[in-house]
């Protein structure tokens, strides 16, 4: 009957009858739809469930000869290390080396051993020289590698990773997978991995454990066996399989479709001219952005962690006041609009979905701004039927559910512009498809969509125009896979994107993505005057 766990107060088990054996040095990949108990199992292996979480535990889970539910925490912590999804919330100490040492101090390592292990762990992970830096100032990818270094420094024999790349840009994710491959090759640790990136994660695994929505096992075994035996059952459950991402990207119904045009000479829905922004004096985050987006366009905003995507979206939505330059939404200054009219013009899905919630129940959230219209259909399509979800607290939903809820809330007032910040982050395949389909319908109905995303498959699936940011600059702005709007000049004028030539002509940095320093190459040199300190309009 295997391992089972029910959170206190839950009406169904999060894990039911899990049974597997993983030999030393092996890699176990746990897959399953959102809410299937992957994180719960990962925490259980690290001895955090039960213990840190209240609930009822059945069966026994052994790591080596330690029973995770009854062993001494110190012993268990010496054996198992765990890395979580959000890099920022795992950093305990301010400085990088202190943070790596934190786990060793807790295990009462002698000073000499720590002085040796800390730099070694940083060097192994590719962070040599970062010792004195502040963890909070690192990019998401660096922070996640730091978290990994902090865990690996203690030389655990089992390494558990719960969606370690979910917040990272493709390069950061690749760097983590590289590290995992290295750890697997050296046999330093047995690994347990929860990961949606099937293409990178599956080849790494010796053993696949697939869970279904009720927390029970669909199948467990070596990769080929599982694929041969249960491919369709896994697909039905909404689990990402290798190759899925690529086929999803190809399945774009918009390939070859011309982006909708608002007619010649119409004003663009979104316009930015020489837009600049800095949160802190002397540290520009958005630099000299020129942009024209017309009604009905679907735009993907891509670029590495910290390149300014979220900031640009907030500038467009009038949530931040530009430090310089102008932004116009439907010809108006969005920063000057009152909340009501602004909300009818633009809807927003925040990168951290939870921060967008303002009510205590899912139903309350969904109904903000609806004015009595029904949202039942939309909620059902998003797999959040109000009947079962309505009374729940939005903060108690799983990550995937929270994100789908925030998509619903952004649509409440039928805005003409939808701004999505990482809408597919942490979604299983079904949630992903639901979101993509809803976007398709919205665009058909005339809505303009701008989505900031690290999910390149999603970008390919929904967008006909890709804007790439780097360090606050727009590095490239190109149409993809589609015939281009006739009104080339109006659309391409400011940002300089050219139709058949994806490498924008007026932007040398764009034609050479590897161009070392965009600041040096950008045609418009940064102004001497440092940006004004600016506060959000509200």
């Amino acid at each position, binding site marked *: 009957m295997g391992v089972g766990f029910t959170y206190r107060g839950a009406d169904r088990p999060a894990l039911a009858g899990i049974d597997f054996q993983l030999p030393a040095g092996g890699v176990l990949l746990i897959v399953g739809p959102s809410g299937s108990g992957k994180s719960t199992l990962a925490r259980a292996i690290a001895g955090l469930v039960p213990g840190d979480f209240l609930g009822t535990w059945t069966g026994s889970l052994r790591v080596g000869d330690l029973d995770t539910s009854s062993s001494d925490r*110190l012993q268990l912590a010496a054996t198992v290390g765990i890395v979580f999804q959000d890099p920022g*919330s795992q950093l305990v100490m301010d400085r990088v080396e202190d943070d790596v*040492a934190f*786990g060793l*101090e*807790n295990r009462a390592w002698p000073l000499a051993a*720590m002085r040796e292990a800390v730099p070694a762990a940083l060097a192994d992970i590719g962070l040599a020289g970062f010792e004195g830096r502040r963890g909070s100032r690192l990019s998401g990818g660096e922070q996640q590698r730091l978290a990994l270094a902090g865990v690996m420094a203690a030389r655990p024999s089992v390494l558990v990773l719960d969606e370690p790349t979910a917040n990272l840009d493709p390069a950061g994710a690749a760097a983590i997978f590289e590290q995992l491959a290295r750890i697997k090759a050296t046999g330093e640790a047995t690994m347990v991995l929860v990961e949606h990136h099937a293409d990178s994660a599956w080849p790494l695994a010796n053993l696949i454990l697939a869970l279904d929505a009720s927390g029970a096992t669909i199948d467990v075994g070596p990769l080929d066996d599982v694929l041969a035996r249960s491919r369709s059952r896994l697909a039905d459950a909404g689990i990402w399989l290798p190759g899925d991402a690529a086929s999803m990207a190809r399945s774009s119904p918009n390939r070859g479709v011309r982006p909708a045009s608002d007619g010649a000479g119409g004003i663009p829905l979104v316009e930015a001219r020489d837009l600049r922004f800095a949160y802190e004096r002397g540290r520009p985050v958005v630099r000299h952005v020129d942009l024209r987006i017309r009604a009905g366009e679907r735009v993907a905003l891509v670029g590495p962690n910290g390149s300014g995507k979220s900031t640009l979206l907030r500038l467009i939505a009038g949530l931040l006041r530009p430090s310089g330059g102008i932004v116009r939404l439907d010809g108006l200054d969005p920063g000057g609009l009152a909340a009501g009219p602004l909300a009818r013009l633009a809807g927003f899905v*925040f990168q951290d979905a939870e921060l967008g919630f303002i009510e205590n129940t899912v139903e309350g959230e969904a109904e903000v*701004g609806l004015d009595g219209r029904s949202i039942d259909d939309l909620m059902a399509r998003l797999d959040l039927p109000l009947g079962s979800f309505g009374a729940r607290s939005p903060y108690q939903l799983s990550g995937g559910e929270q994100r789908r809820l925030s998509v619903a809330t952004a649509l409440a007032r039928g805005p003409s512009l939808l701004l999505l910040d990482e809408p597919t982050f942490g979604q299983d395949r079904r949630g992903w498809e639901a979101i993509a389909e809803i976007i398709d319908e919205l665009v058909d109905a005339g809505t303009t969509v701008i989505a900031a995303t690290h999910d390149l498959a999603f970008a390919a699936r929904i967008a006909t125009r890709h804007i790439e940011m780097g360090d606050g600059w727009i590095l490239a702005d190109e149409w993809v896979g589609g015939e281009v709007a006739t009104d080339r000049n109006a659309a391409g004028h400011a940002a300089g994107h050219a139709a058949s030539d994806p490498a924008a002509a007026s932007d040398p940095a764009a034609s050479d993505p590897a161009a070392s320093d965009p600041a040096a190459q950008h045609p418009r040199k940064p102004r001497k005057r440092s940006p004004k300190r600016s506060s959000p309009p509200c």
Partner: protein
Amino acid sequence: MLSPIDLTARQESSILGRTNPLVKLGIALGWLIGLGLMHDPPRPMALALVAVAAGLVLGRIPPARLIQGLTPLVAAAGSIALANLVFAAANTDPAAHELIRIGALRLTAEAVVVASSIGARVVAIVATGVVFAQTTDPTRLVDALVQQARVPERFAYGALAAYQAIPRLSQDLGTLRHARRIRGVGCDWHPKLLIGLLVRAIRHADQLALAMDARAFGTTPRTAFRPLMWRWTDLAVGIGGAVIIVLLLLA
């Protein structure tokens, strides 16, 4: 955005920057008690000047930062002096020397002395506080509290971890306000913002606690990666601080 003080390398390597935080804390507390015993304006003002000078010279605090830190606080301190001026017992004492009378309000010379000495006291407290904060790395402070003052380590490092969350929480607060605006419910300072912020704070605490537990926090008495030892500068600064307050009390 609100973020904890970021010491420059010069500040960190200065004499006060390298002095044990407990010594500085001890001096600040000693001065606080001494200030409680002073009932005149000049001596607290002198102490305030000493603190500022020490901050500039021994602490290498950039003057602009010092001024930036002091200004709002001195303004707040002024309000305490004002309250003392208006509500001094001397104002109702018929024997006291009346300076001015506006309707029911009678201000006396005695009240002015009291108010200005309290004002000077608060300025001295502010100056010491700013110099302390501008020369002390919170991590070092907690290290010293745990290693040398025997403060319980789980609580000390737990508080430190929570302290590091300030920039993140202040960003979250910004986003909460943005969400209210873009969802059309306005962007005033609604009490729900406080609840939203506490929700975030507690969720962050949960995640941090999990990450710390997973790294064996609190399972056994810890060792220190940054062991602290008493140094001669600590002794010198400590004696200096004590001498100053004793001299002023005797003056």
